[in-house]
Structure formats: C-alpha cells, structure tokens
C-alpha cells in the first residue's frame, strides 16, 4: 500500500478533533444568530415603550386625532380596530370552519376538491395589498359598500380565511377515526358525527387558529389603506345599541373608520418629531395586543392538549 495515500492514526485524530471543534463553533454561531433575532424583538419593544412613554396616559386613549401631537389620541383608531375585528371574526370563523369541515369530513377525493385545496394554499401566499385591491374593486365599487367598517372587516376576513381553514383542518385531523366510527355505529349521520363528536374535540385548535388569524388581521395596514381608510376621523361610529326600538342598530357597519395601524402609519410619516412619540406609543399598544393574542393562542393550545387523552 502506498504510504502517501493512507493517513496515519495521528492525522485522523487531528482531523477529527478539528471537525469536532467546528461543531462547537457552529453551536455558538447558531445561538448567536438566534439570540440576535430575539434580542432585536426585545430592543424594538423596549424602544417603543421608551419613545412613547411620555404619551401613555388616560388622555391618549380618550382623545381623537389632532393637529397637535400632544393632544392627539387613539380613541377613534382603537374603536375602529375593535369593530373591524368583530366583523372579521364573525365572518372568518363560520366560513373558515365550514370550509375546513367540508374538506376534511365530506369532500370526495376528486379533481374538484383538489381545486379547492390548491386555492386555499395559494391564497395564503397572495400579498395582502392584493386583497386590498380586490376589496376596492369588489366591495367598495361593485357591491357599493363604500369605505366602511363592513368592507374592511370582510377584506380582513378573506385575508385570514386560509389561516383559519388550515388550523381547523389540522385539529379535525387530530381526532381519532375510532371516535367517528363509534358514532356511525350507533346510527348517527355524518353531520351528527361532526357536530356532536368531532367538533367539540377540535374547539381548542379552531380557537387557536382564529386568534392567530385575528392577530395577523389586527396589524394589517396595506389592505385597509387601499380601500380608503382615513387617518383623520374625529368621531365615533354610531353606537350599536340605541335608545329606541329595536334597540340594536347596524348603522356602524356603514361608518367611515380609521384603525390603529393606519393611525401609526400616519403619525410615523409626518416630518414633525413630536408625532414620532405618538407613533411609538400606539405601536407599543398594537404590538402588545398582538403578542398578547399570540400568548393566548399558545396557552389555549397547551391547555387543550393537556386535557385530551385519547
């Protein structure tokens, strides 16, 4: 055997030691990158809190936007965002869950079902601003909904529909077949099996999906700018509860609106430094709400996972 080709034991050991060193170096690099990213999130949040600290106060929550930075507040934006979220949830939840049930429990395996599935996957990848253009052309002009809370809520509902569908399907799939078979065995119809047995077990997963979807919707700015949200709204939508019969009114759906992310965008794009503090304070509140919703979603998932023992 040619001695030049063969490695001595010494050389092999050296090479191995070197390669093991590389392993350790990579662990350090990986940790550094990971914590770098997490630290950025922490710095961002801390900076928002610090920059906005001068603005946190009761007045900030109870004032309308104003030309004077120190008198401006987020009242109309917070109310607008809350009402839009109500519409979004009321539309996205039933439609998303129904679509998921159809795909998971009912749909035959054929080309038609395939088309629906491909559509759901592709819609998740469509840029959010394209949903805004869809809403502008369809809801605002074709359906004549105008630049209203209803149009914004419907837009964001379409946007988060794929999230709700995917989450619901996953939790439906996690319910063991045996439970369905047992119910069929007792003569239940497909809908009875779904409604009485499968759905109750999937509630946790569905709620998690809905909350994650809403946490995405609450921060979406582009689609609602496109349909024409205004940034200067110094009034509140009409109250849903009225003094006269029938005591409930849907007028608020047709109201013009502003929303938290729009307000932040408006403040951050002003050259006047004083408004940056407002942007930071509102940004901290919005970010806090998003993180809170995510935390709730994770908690629900954890609770339900612990509770269910098949």
């Amino acid at each position, binding site marked *: 055997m040619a001695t030049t080709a063969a490695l001595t034991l010494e050389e092999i050991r050296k090479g191995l030691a070197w*390669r*093991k060193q*590389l*392993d350790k170096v*990579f*662990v350090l*690099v*990986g940790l550094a*990158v*990971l914590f770098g*990213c*997490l630290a*950025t*999130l922490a710095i*961002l949040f801390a*900076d928002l809190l610090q*920059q906005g600290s001068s603005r946190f106060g009761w007045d900030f929550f109870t004032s309308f936007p104003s030309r004077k930075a120190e008198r401006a507040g987020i009242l109309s934006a917070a109310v607008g965002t809350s009402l839009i979220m109500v519409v979004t949830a009321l539309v996205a939840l*039933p*439609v998303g869950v*129904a*679509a998921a049930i*159809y*795909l998971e429990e*009912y749909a035959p395996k054929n080309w038609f079902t395939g088309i*629906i599935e491909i*559509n759901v996957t*592709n*819609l998740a*990848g*469509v*840029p*959010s*601003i*394209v*949903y*805004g*253009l*869809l809403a502008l*052309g*369809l809801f605002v*002009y074709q359906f004549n909904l105008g630049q209203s809370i209803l149009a914004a809520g419907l837009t964001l509902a379409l946007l988060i529909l*794929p999230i709700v*569908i995917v989450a619901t399907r996953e939790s439906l799939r996690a319910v063991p077949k045996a439970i369905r078979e047992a119910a069929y065995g007792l003569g239940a*119809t497909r*809908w009875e099996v779904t409604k009485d047995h499968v759905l109750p077990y999937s509630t946790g997963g569905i709620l998690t999906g809905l909350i994650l979807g809403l946490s*995405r919707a609450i*921060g*979406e*700015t*582009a689609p609602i700018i*496109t349909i024409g949200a205004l940034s200067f709204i110094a009034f509140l939508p009409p109250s849903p509860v009225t003094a006269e019969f029938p005591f409930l009114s849907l007028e608020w759906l047709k109201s013009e609106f502003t929303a938290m*992310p729009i307000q932040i965008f408006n403040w*951050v794009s002003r050259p006047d430094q004083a408004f940056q503090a407002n*942007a*930071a304070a509102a*940004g901290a509140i919005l*970010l806090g709400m998003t*993180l809170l919703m*995510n935390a709730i979603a*994770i908690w629900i998932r954890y609770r339900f996972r612990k509770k269910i023992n098949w």
Partner: protein
Amino acid sequence: MSQGKALKAQGAFASLRYRKARDRVVELILLAAGLVAVFTTVAIIFILVYESSFFFENVSIKDFLTDTMWTPLFADARYGIAPLVAGTLTVTGVALFVAIPLGTIIAIYLSEFAPHRVRETVKPILELLGAVPTVVYGYFALIMVTPLLQKLIPGLPGFNMLSAGLVIGLMIVPYVASVSEDAMRAVPRYMREGSYAMGATKMQTALRVVVPGAFSGIAAAYILGISRAVGETMVVAIAAGMMPNLTFNPTEPAATITAYIVQVSLGDLPHDSIGYQSIFAAGLVLLLMTLVFNVIGFFLTRRFREAY
C-alpha cells in the same frame, strides 16, 4: 300494541329521512363555504384584469414594459413599470441577503444541534417575530435602523431601500427558519445514523446529508420568503420613500410596486382617473411576480425532491 310498534318504527324512518335530508342541506352549505376560496381567487384575477383593462386602453403594453419612467400622477405622465419592478427586486434582494443565511443557520441549529427543550421553547418565541405588525417594523426601519446605517454609510439618504430591505429580511427570518426546520426534521433518522456510523460529525451530517435531503423543503421556504418580501408594503412605504427610481442601488430611495399602490390610495383620486386605474395594473404585475416565483419554486422542489 303491535300497531303502536309499527307507528314507532314509521316515526323512526321518518326521522331518519329527515336527518338524512338535513345532512344533504348541511353538506351543500359546507360546500358553499369551501367555494369561497375558489371565488376569492377568481375575483382577485377578475378584478385586477378588469380594472387594468381600462388602464391599458390608454397606455400601450409596449410603453408599460419598455418606458423607464413611472410618473402617472404628473402632468407629463409616463407609464413604464420598470422603476417600480427594480425597486421591488432590490428590496427583495437585500431582504433575502439577510433572511436566507440567518434563517438557514437557525433552522440547522434548531433541527440538528439544539436540545429538545431549547427547540420547544424557542420556536414559538421566534414565531412571534413574524407576528409583529409590519407598520411597527416600518417604524423600526425609519426611526432606528436608518440613523444607525447613516453612521456607517455617510451621505445615506433618510429614505433608502437598504434599511427597508434589512428590516424585511429580519421579518421573514422566522418563516424561512420555521419551514426549513420542518423540512430538515422530516429527513429520516436512519440517514443521520448512517452518516454518524461513517464517522461524520454533526456538522458534516447536517451539511452533507440533512440539508441535501431536505433541499426541496428548504427551497420552498426560500420561495415563501421571497413572496413575503415582494408583497411587503408598509416597511417600504415608510422607510424606502415614494419616488419611483430606476436603480438597483440599495442606498438610494425608491418606490416599490406596493409603495406606489399605498401612495395612490392615500390620495383622493377619482374612480375613473388613470392614476386610480394604474394601481390595478401595478397590482397585476405584483401578482404575476409572486406567481412566477411560486412556479419556479414548484419546479425546484419537484426537481430536488428526495423520496425515502
């Protein structure tokens, strides 16, 4: 007595028939909900094509594709989409320059090196990074990152694509990391064991066995990142400026397709003006760009798919 039994059976049959009929109705309702997804896709394409058709009645497709200026809102209007596409591609390029290395390193670390506890704790936290509202990232880019960059690069304008691209890159790291990690974890354990048995270290196994084995999934993760970066709106609208500028130099300000749409939406253009119609043409180009990247991704993943 026997008559009562018969009646009961009849009742049961009637109720079964009712329940089956109800099942059919419910199925139709559920199907209708499923069709909302199909309807949305059709509506997106229809609205974009329909509204841009008015635009293309006034502007020739040749001008749209070859002109080097985009000034639909000026008196001397020019309609070349190239500057907006250049802006979009430049920002996307900068974002990928950040997101692909960082995302891949995090994915390899979490999938191959990190202890179970670390992975389970870190992954949800990392996903929070992707949940931050984009308008907040925009604030971050304009107020924090740009001043920092201006110290490093003297003469950097207050609006620039570099700062927007870097922040978008950071924003899509979690997507890239999370999807690539899932792909790497799907590589079967025995392939790693085989590699270890040959005397390979973790690092060698990760780079030469796991990454090639998961390449189709990793490519899908990159494509997802690209789609996100191309369609990102608020960060560029806030931090990169709103002036169309035909350049690939990230230190310059430039508008992207998305920023242009926002700019027009903020104004108060009448429904039938050409400025208004131009945002649908721009949106159509945006949708086609994401479509092209997704088709490339589809073929990449198919080309590199490994079957176990």
